[in-house]
């Protein structure tokens, strides 16, 4: 096993679960880590060093809201000192120009600003807070400064028609990259799934518009998007394969193979306070569980695509098929695909009024 084992390339650092926003599709687990249990700057510095030694190239600072850590500048400095490329994935709050300068001076390489919508009203409906105007201010602050900028628009039924406005925001910014990310229906997103899934008609129009933009922006802005899972024929290689490329550290130091892995019952996560990163990566129980192909069932087991998509998303398999070892039910070859189609059949009417039935993400103690 160890001989053919890849080095992880990216370290996803959930620095905190605290966040000023309450997005209805937050990728954090439903059970949030309390502030008192968060790793110290010293522990994170050790994690960065061990990660670089393991072969990790990039650190993704996320949360919750990573800027909620008062020691964010020191955290960036520590990751850079370990030799990592530092991505900050943020809502742009809390931030002012002086703070932005200190993040850049500490060595921040890439600033990724997330958007819930192209307008304040829908952004507020989704995040339960008024933050859209602040994001537009942050884009102005970023313009004269030397840092890579990505805009990340999270797509769902309430904003998919805003593609034109989203592209206009990207075009008027200094972004070199715009990412259209689909809501992932695990955790909070799963609880709000019926209100967030786009209709087929919405998606078809979006795909036409985004392909045109990709051509128009070539050489100026890199446009990235994928067909959302529920509408795809085959599953995505979730996390690039379980325990293959990514290691996620939760605010309290648990090491996870993906953001949502905590939904899978019976998985035990080791903690960086107790074990070395190398030990966890190479032989940790949770990382071994769905690594390689031994765990696969049919139709994955004998499928030609198994080395391409690794069976898809384990969390989705659990949530829809009730079995984390099953083929990702979004796959057209899955015996459970009918369950996905039934969900899609139920949501094809476009929804015009704001939904009052969202379950909003809470905050940890």
């Amino acid at each position: 096993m160890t001989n053919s084992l890849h080095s992880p390339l990216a370290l996803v650092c959930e620095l905190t679960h605290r966040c000023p926003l309450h997005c209805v599709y937050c990728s954090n687990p439903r059970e949030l880590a309390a502030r008192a249990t968060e790793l110290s700057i010293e522990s994170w510095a050790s994690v960065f060093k061990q990660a670089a030694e393991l072969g990790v190239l990039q650190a993704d600072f996320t949360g919750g809201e990573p800027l909620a850590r008062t020691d964010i500048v020191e955290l960036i400095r520590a990751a850079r000192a370990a030799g990592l490329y530092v991505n900050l994935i943020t809502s742009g709050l809390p931030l002012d120009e002086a703070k932005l300068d200190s993040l850049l001076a500490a060595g921040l390489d890439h600033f990724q600003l997330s958007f819930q919508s192209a307008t304040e009203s829908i952004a507020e409906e989704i995040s339960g807070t008024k933050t859209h105007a602040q994001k537009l201010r942050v884009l102005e602050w970023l313009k004269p400064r030397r840092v890579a900028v990505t805009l990340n628009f999270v797509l769902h039924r309430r904003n998919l028609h805003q593609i034109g406005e989203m592209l206009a925001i990207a075009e008027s910014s200094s972004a070199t990259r715009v990412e259209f990310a689909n809501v992932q229906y695990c955790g909070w997103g799963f609880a709000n799934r019926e209100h967030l899934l786009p209709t087929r008609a919405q998606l078809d129009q979006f795909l036409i518009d985004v392909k045109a933009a990709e051509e128009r922006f070539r050489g100026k802005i890199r446009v990235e998007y994928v067909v959302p899972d529920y509408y795809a024929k085959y599953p995505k290689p979730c996390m690039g394969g379980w325990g293959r490329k990514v290691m996620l550290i939760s605010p309290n130091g648990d090491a996870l193979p993906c953001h949502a892995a905590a939904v899978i019952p019976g998985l035990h996560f080791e903690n960086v306070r107790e074990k070395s990163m190398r030990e966890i990566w190479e032989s940790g129980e949770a990382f071994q569980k769905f690594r390689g192909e031994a765990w696969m069932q049919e139709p994955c087991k004998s499928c030609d695509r198994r080395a391409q998509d690794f069976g898809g998303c384990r969390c989705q398999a659990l949530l829809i098929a009730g079995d984390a070892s099953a083929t990702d039910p979004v796959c057209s070859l899955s015996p459970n695909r009918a369950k996905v189609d039934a969900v899609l059949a139920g949501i094809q009417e476009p929804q015009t009024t704001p939904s009052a039935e969202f379950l909003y993400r809470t905050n940890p103690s």
Partner: protein
Amino acid sequence: MAIDPNSKPQLAPGVRLGENNNQRVLLMPERALRLIGPSLEIVQRCDGKHTVAQIVADLQKIYSKAEPHKVETDILGYLQLLRDERALDFTA
């Protein structure tokens, strides 16, 4: 869009050379490209001072056994790829 031989490529903001396990890599948002042989020679010259034509001439000298036209086509193709990745900016 063709590459202007008189333009000067330089690494875009947030794109830099890095090293891992004695391997040179080009680090950029959510990506890392391994740099070996000619790709490293090219990227090291994307400093905002060398023109595309100068980079081509330099590499034709280094790889003097290769067919010069092929060296040029390969370099232009690689620069275009890096531009579309948004790893390079070109100044006049």
